[in-house]
């Protein structure tokens, strides 16, 4: 009888059930989509923040001082210590290797450009552009094109194994060079494949594949510094502690959190004789920006959850209020309050489950659409969320119906049937 009542109620009152069900579905859709966006926004914004550039710098441990003004190095180039290029792929062996978006080694050398009998001094910067590397079974591409995304080239990027070079736009303007020209640098001929614009010191420099800089310097495998771009977690009190002063479990927590400090520490472990440090301008500030945006989206998600909960409650209350006469009839026929209430709750549960399932699927699609159109990447929804969302949907539906059910049940059947009140 109970099952039949519920079944008939769904069969005969299609319009009302559809309305209430639509409200629940919509509420769950919005809630699911917002939860998915909120859980993923940190990662997405973190990746966007990487456009500001590398946040970690690896230098040789015994490095002597840089004597550099406006990108011109005033120190003898062979002076000081170097890192070994062969050690670089080991960056991918660190604990947080998945968080390392890219790295770019740099080797500045002082060269002379030979033209028209004059020999102006310029800095030639050797680096990776988009170098194919492998570590173990891992193949990856890295270089300035991922760590320095604001570099622009008019012309073509040189290949990492080619004899092509880039000329900074200011230097090119002074020399009157265009892409496609041949340029003689320190006794070697190179082809200019493009003009580089960075808005910084590189505009006055020549940028070439790392091997060319090593060849000119006469030190194969030498690297002066490595810029590393990593996804990090905003710094907190634990991050600022000295790892040596931490006890076992605290140290593990520090080591296994992607703080700028702990990633720097792991880079130091991976590359022999190196010193890694966060570039504070980038690392410190991206933490604040990330915290702000995450906080904002979190609070807005809360608001969205509240709004959808209220929408569901309102729809349920209305749906039940419309059925006072039915309650009156059931009570007049001798149904107990409990029996009437349980029918309504059963219906609410059924509605919440159906609406929750449909809404969860729709919310997943919506989140995916938001991810694709805003961030050009997927926003996935954890399947683990499904039971949570369903339980919340049922609870909210119950809460929304409870007051209305109580009032309907307490109503005198006589008034209810006469349509008064």
């Amino acid at each position, binding site marked *: 009888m109970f099952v039949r009542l519920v079944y008939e109620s769904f069969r005969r009152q299609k319009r009302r059930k559809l309305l209430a069900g639509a409200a629940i579905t919509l509420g769950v859709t919005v809630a699911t989509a917002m939860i998915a966006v909120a859980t993923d926004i940190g990662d997405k914004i973190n990746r966007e923040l990487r456009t500001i550039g590398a946040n970690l710098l690896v230098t040789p441990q015994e490095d002597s001082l840089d004597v550099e003004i406006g990108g011109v190095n005033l120190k003898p180039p062979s002076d000081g210590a170097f890192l070994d290029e062969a050690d670089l792929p080991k960056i991918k062996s660190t604990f947080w290797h998945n968080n390392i978006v890219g790295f770019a080694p740099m080797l500045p050398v002082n060269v002379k450009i030979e033209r028209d009998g004059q020999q102006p001094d310029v800095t030639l910067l050797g680096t990776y552009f988009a170098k194919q590397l492998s570590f173990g079974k891992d193949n990856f591409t890295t270089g300035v094109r991922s760590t320095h995304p604001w570099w622009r080239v008019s012309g073509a990027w040189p290949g990492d194994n080619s004899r092509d070079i880039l000329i900074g736009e200011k230097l090119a303007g002074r020399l009157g060079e265009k892409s496609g020209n041949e340029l003689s640098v320190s006794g070697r001929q190179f082809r200019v494949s493009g003009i580089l614009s960075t808005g910084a010191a590189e505009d006055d420099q020549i940028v070439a594949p790392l091997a060319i800089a090593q060849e000119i310097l006469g030190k194969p495998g030498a690297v002066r510094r490595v810029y590393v771009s990593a996804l990090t977690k905003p710094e907190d009190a634990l991050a600022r502690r000295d790892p040596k002063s931490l006890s076992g479990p605290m140290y593990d927590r520090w080591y296994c959190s992607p703080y700028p400090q702990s990633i720097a520490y792991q880079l130091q472990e991976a590359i022999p004789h190196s010193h890694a440090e966060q570039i504070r301008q980038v690392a410190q500030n991206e933490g604040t920006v990330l915290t702000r945006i995450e906080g904002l989206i979190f609070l807005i998600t809360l608001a969205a959850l509240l709004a959808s909960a209220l*929408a569901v409650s309102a729809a349920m209350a*209305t749906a039940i209020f*419309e059925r006072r006469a039915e309650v009156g009839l059931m009570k007049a026929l001798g149904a107990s309050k409990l029996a009437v209430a349980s029918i309504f709750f059963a219906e609410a549960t059924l509605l919440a489950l159906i609406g929750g399932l449909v809404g969860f699927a729709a919310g997943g699609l919506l989140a995916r659409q938001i991810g694709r159109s805003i961030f050009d990447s997927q926003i996935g929804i954890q399947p683990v969320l499904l039971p949570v969302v369903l339980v919340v949907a049922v609870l909210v539906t119950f809460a929304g119906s409870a007051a209305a059910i109580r009032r309907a049940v307490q109503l005198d059947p006589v008034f209810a049937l006469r349509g008064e009140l």
Partner: protein
Amino acid sequence: MSTPPTTSASFGSARNLAASRSQGPHTSMFLRMLLRAAVLRRGRATSALLAVVVAAAAATAMLTLFVDVQSKLQREFRNFGANIIIVGRDGAPLPADTLPRVESTLTGRGLVAPFAMVVARTGDGQPIVVAGADFDRVRQLDRWWSVDNWPSAPQQALIGVRARSIISSSAAAATSQPFDLSFQGHVIHLRPAGTVQTGAAEDSRIYLSTSDFFAWTGVKPSTIEVAANGSADEVTAIMHQLSQAVPAADVHPVRQIMEGEARVLGKTRSTLVAATVLIILTAALCVLSTLMGWVFDRRRDFAIMKALGASQRLLNGFFAAEAAALGATGAVIGFIVGIGIAAWIGRVNFHAPLEPRFSVLPIVVAVSIAVTLLSAILPISLLRRVQPAVILRGE
């Protein structure tokens, strides 16, 4: 013989009634019906009002946030430091009046810090980059500098962490013992005040105050860093004004910062738009379903009025007025609540108050009234074709 006068009399009385209805008593009756509808069915009226308030509050909060979050986040991005750099053209020094000109162009729309640099020699002949800087300005502009003690007295220097080793053999001595630097035969005697750590080029330098630096080397600032406030367009405009104000200098943007900022702000704004649309849509549907239920529920009132001879236009007007009053009241209350929510989010998340935007109010009121009208008209047009008797019989 007696019929025509009667008809004319009844006609006359009907005309009188119509005339009297269109005046005072009619309006007061109309108002009374509106008021009684709200008072008698307090529960339903309150829940409908609540739905409108929630929707209006959500819309207000989201719209206020949407306008304000941009400027709040832009302010966060100014912590990344300068977004405009002014240097002498082709390595030439900046003209002496550059700094005052830059400041008068900027008129408080950002921060400015001049830097001068030379390569000096330490006591044992090692080269080192020494920079002259205005510490008060640097403190505000480059907030990420980790400095243990800023120089406050003349002849005090700020030592980069990597420059410590070149001044003295032990780190402890480097931060306490006085040292000498020489530049083109001029020697300056300095005391270290503290160390600076940034993870970048600053770590290998020594910083002096602008006055000490100029007295020692005679070199004027060669670089001016500018952190201009505002949106990308405003910063571009400031840059344009600056290059006109100092034609002898090269004014260029720090692309790294400007492009990163534009990207992150753009994505955040799109996410906010998506969230705002979703939330307002949900809230509006909540209003729609509640109100439709409410009006539908009162089909007996509707039928009685119709049976008593109310015209369809009067009925439409009655329900529309009711809906509009509900929408307007709800919108105003919701606006106040929404501003409260936005202010709270501003305080919790950005540690800065969000200013209430009264320009949002007319939009919220208009949209609320539109939604409530829509949700009143829909059920009425459905009931329109139904005979009052059918409704009154409860079928």
